[in-house]
């Protein structure tokens, strides 16, 4: 999937993946896609909850090699 920016949240625990995602999205424009890589299992539910509450679209969540990859499209 194409993306405009990548956030490496490997090794970070709650709430850092969410807070850093929010910060990364801040300087992006509507429609752009942020790729987030996390190793925090809790981030799967949290990223979905973040998307639901902020209106940004979680396009995809994939687990590969023990890492979670999210594609978040800015509202």
């Amino acid at each position: 999937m194409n993306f405009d920016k990548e956030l490496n949240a490997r090794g970070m625990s709650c709430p850092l993946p969410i807070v850093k995602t929010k910060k990364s999205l801040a300087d992006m424009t509507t429609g752009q896609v942020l790729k987030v890589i996390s190793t925090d299992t809790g981030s799967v539910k949290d990223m979905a909850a973040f998307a639901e509450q902020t209106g940004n679209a979680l396009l995809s969540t994939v687990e590969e090699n023990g890492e979670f990859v999210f594609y978040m499209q800015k509202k």
Partner: protein
Amino acid sequence: MANKKMAIIATKGTLDMAYPPFILGSTAAALGYDVQIFFTFYGLQLLRKDLSSVMISPLANPAMPMPIPMPVMVQMLPGMESMATMMMKQKLKKHGVASLEELRDLCLEADVKFVACQMTVDLFEFDKSEFIDNVEYGGAATFMNFAGDTDICLFV
């Protein structure tokens, strides 16, 4: 639509109890909430520029997981508090949990408002110059003014 709001009262000054207000505050701010944290009694310790005095003790804290069983008599020995604090900080770091300083900075960056209870500042004769700059001072009515209109209101 107006932002949702969350208010937290932070009353504890130990390492473990310092985390929830800053974690929830920074997260809520990331979700678009307006957040205010009211620091009172021992929670005021969390506003110090230097947070190294925020510690954890296994004493009277039987739920704290310990690497080896430790009788209360041993927990009372001098230096145990520092040791437990050091071990907890190492554990937090190993698991990628942010430090208190980092979470507090994230709160401030996200415009979380910190209010210190003037009455307890006076009661404990705290020196305001030891606190970080981004703090307002107020009383219970100041808290109610914001809390009365919140979606989430917590006491920690």
